[in-house]
C-alpha cells in the first residue's frame, strides 16, 4: 500500500453506484473521479464484492489553493451479490473516473442427456 503524504485525514466514501442487470450479467457502474485503473482494487470473497480506489489529492503544481467545495476522497464499498457469478469472467474497466464492472451470471448447467433408442 502506498504511503499517504497528505497531512489531512483521508476521507473514504461510498461511490455513487448504479446496478444494472441483463439476463446474462450484472453490471455495476460507480463514479470514482480521481481514480485510475491502477488505483482501483476489486476483491470478490464469497458473495461479497469489495471495491476500493485511491485518488491523488495534490494541488496542481505552481498554484495556490483559493478554496474548494470538495476534495477528492478515497472510495470503498462492499456489494453483496445475490446472484452467483462466473468469477473467472468478471471484467472491470475504469474510464474518465467511472468504473464499470461486468459480472457474468452463472447460468444453470444445461447438460445434454443422451437419449437412447
Amino acid at each position, binding site marked *: 500500500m502506498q504511503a499517504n503524504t497528505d497531512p489531512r485525514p483521508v*476521507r473514504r*466514501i*461510498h*461511490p*455513487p*453506484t*448504479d*446496478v*444494472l*442487470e*441483463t439476463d446474462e450479467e450484472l*453490471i455495476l*457502474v*460507480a*463514479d*470514482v*473521479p*480521481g*481514480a*485510475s485503473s491502477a488505483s482501483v482494487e476489486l476483491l470478490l470473497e464469497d458473495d461479497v464484492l469489495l471495491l476500493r480506489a485511491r*485518488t491523488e489529492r495534490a*494541488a*496542481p503544481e*505552481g*498554484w*495556490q*489553493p*483559493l*478554496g*474548494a*467545495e*470538495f*476534495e*477528492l*476522497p478515497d472510495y470503498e464499498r462492499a456489494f453483496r451479490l445475490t446472484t452467483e457469478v462466473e468469477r473467472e469472467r468478471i471484467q472491470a474497466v*475504469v*474510464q*474518465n*473516473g*467511472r468504473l*464499470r464492472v461486468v459480472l457474468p451470471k452463472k447460468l444453470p448447467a444445461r447438460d445434454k442427456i443422451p437419449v437412447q433408442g
Partner: protein
Amino acid sequence: MRFDPLPVSSPSMQAMFQFWSLQPTLERLLADQGAARSTSMAFALYQRAEGWLLRTPLPGVAASAIMLEIDGNALTLSGVWPPDESAGARSRHLERPRGAFRRTLRVPFEIDAARVRARVEHGVLEVELPRRARSGPVKVQVLSESTRN
C-alpha cells in the same frame, strides 16, 4: 436563460464532497451561482498571478462532451451525464447523476478566452483561466489649432 436540470444527489454523493470554510470572497463568488450550485458539480479553485484554475469532478463525461463557454469574466460549463451503454439492461439501483449539468463561475477579472486551457484526467476537469493582459497606457496626442486643420 437559467435552468436547473441537475439531478438530486444521493446521500452518498453529498457525503463525497466536504465543505470547509471558504474565503469570504470565494464564498460570495460561489454563492451567487444560485440554483446551478450542486454537489455533483463542486468546484475547487486555485490561483497564481496569471489567473485562476478550476477543478471539478465530471466522472464518466468524455472531454469532447464538455461544453465550455467564456463570456467576459464568466465561465459556463455544461453537458449531459452520459447514460450507461448497456443496451436493454434493467436498472436495479440508480445513484449516479442523470440529465444535464450546467454551472457558471464568475471570476474577478477578464478571462483571456484565447488562452483558456482545459483537460480531463480520471474524470476530473481542470480549466485554466488566464487573465487578459491589461493594455498599457495609451498616449493621446493633443492637437493644437494649427495641426488640427
